[in-house]
């Protein structure tokens, strides 16, 4: 499987280094979960991979494109912790935003509709996002990313605020997409049991370093 993301000798942070990664590769079709204490640099790592934050040093390569060059339009689908929705727009407008950002411009409406249905938001399609509950807003953000058909999904605690049933439904939709499209996914998750369940690999960040010993969910004892 080709690597969608390649990180080498990466130093992540603003002015001082928060997190160091010697080498990390995420292959096509793989889901990688990252966990660790708050403030250790998990979100900064996602922002660095997405190109929003410049690395202090090291290599970030996404879909064959090296930082600081940006990968092709629509390659990265980012679900930030605070969702990044256009609050005054409708669910449809938000999901269409993802659909328009896709690498292929064909069938953008169809992709948006399918994503809305997959997230169970058909009845809220024309509702303003600000009127939705926290969980519904989260599903809109996920629908936006699915409509985008990205090669890499970066999700920051994307299942929080969701009840168990919805969480399972959403997880299924996202994992199905990853396996069917051959995309890769990096998710930051505090709930280790949940992260273990969803991901193919779980990384624990400890003292500003990716723990090299606990990288396989099969050997992880929580």
């Amino acid at each position, binding site marked *: 499987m080709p690597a969608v993301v390649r990180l080498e000798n990466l130093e992540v942070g603003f002015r001082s280094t928060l997190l160091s990664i010697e080498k990390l590769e995420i292959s096509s079709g793989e889901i990688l979960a990252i966990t660790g204490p708050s403030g250790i640099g998990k979100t900064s790592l996602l922002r660095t991979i997405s190109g929003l934050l410049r690395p202090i040093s090291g290599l970030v390569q996404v879909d064959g494109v090296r930082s600081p060059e940006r990968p092709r339009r629509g390659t990265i689908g980012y679900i930030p912790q605070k*969702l990044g929705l256009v609050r005054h727009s409708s669910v449809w*407008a938000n999901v269409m935003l993802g659909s328009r950002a896709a690498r292929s411009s064909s069938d953008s409406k169809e992709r948006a509709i399918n994503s809305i249905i997959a997230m169970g938001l058909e009845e809220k399609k024309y509702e303003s996002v600000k009127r939705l509950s926290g969980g519904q807003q989260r599903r809109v953000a996920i629908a936006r990313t699915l409509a985008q058909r990205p090669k890499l999904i970066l999700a920051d605690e994307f299942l929080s605020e969701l009840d168990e049933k919805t969480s399972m439904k959403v997880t299924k939709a996202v994992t199905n997409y990853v396996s069917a499209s051959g995309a890769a996914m990096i998710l930051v998750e505090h709930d280790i049991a949940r992260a273990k369940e969803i991901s193919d690999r779980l990384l624990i960040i400890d003292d500003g370093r990716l723990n090299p010993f606990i990288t396989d969910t099969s050997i992880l004892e929580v």
Partner: protein
Amino acid sequence: MAGMDREFKELLISVTIVIIGFWTIVQLTSGLIWDWNGWKALEPQSYPPCEVNNFLQFTCSTAWIGMIETIKIAILATFFGMLLSLPLGLLSSRNLFPNYITYPSRAIVSACRSLPSLIWAIVFVIIVGLGPTAGVLAMSIYTVGYLGKMQYESIEGMNSDPLEAANAMGLTKAEISLWVVIPEAANHLIAQMIFMFEYNVRSGTVIGIVGAGGIGYYINLYLKFLEYERVAAYLVIIFLVVLIIDMVSIYLRSFFVDDSEKTKPSWSGLILPPKETVGPPRSNNPRQF
């Protein structure tokens, strides 16, 4: 019941103040605005002859003609100003564009704002001649400067999360502006535009003094004929019109604030304080909170 009493008392005080104020103004302007025979300041001009029916005779008065022209100038200036200021406001926002774009754009916005609309009016009267065209141009330029600044400040103050998500997706700056920034900042942009219209009506009354159209032209004319009572009467009319526009503007703007759904805007809210829906009931005892 106690709440009703308080509301009624406040309404009564407001109405009394308005009546006393109006009566004082009527006395000060020697009956030129209004006497027991009607609205004197709205009497039609002797020439050209007024051919509308008696009920609409006031539309032939210079006060009416001047005020309507001022409002028309303000509408056009706000429209053209908004058309030009929105792209400049977006280009001036540092959270959207790099410094080599924002600096020149901000310089244009600042240049438009550096001169007051009255000076712009003098410039355009020299360029295009006397009349409302000069007024529209002058106020459009000033609107670009003033509105552009308000716009880029509110865009820079908007939540960065939608911008980051859109940037990560790889959307272009134009797409981000169109689909993220404008919808997200729409409430502010509309409220600022309404405020600018209100501002333009106020400043539009002044630019007529230098020959750029509107009611200011007539004020200047009567000043030259030493008809100070009539000038005072026209100033009062301006005050009343601006007051009404101000109130309508506050009412309209109240629809475009984020909590407008929680507290529905109302006309009474312009005069009376909002009803207390939460918190403990008011106490007459100042020691008791």
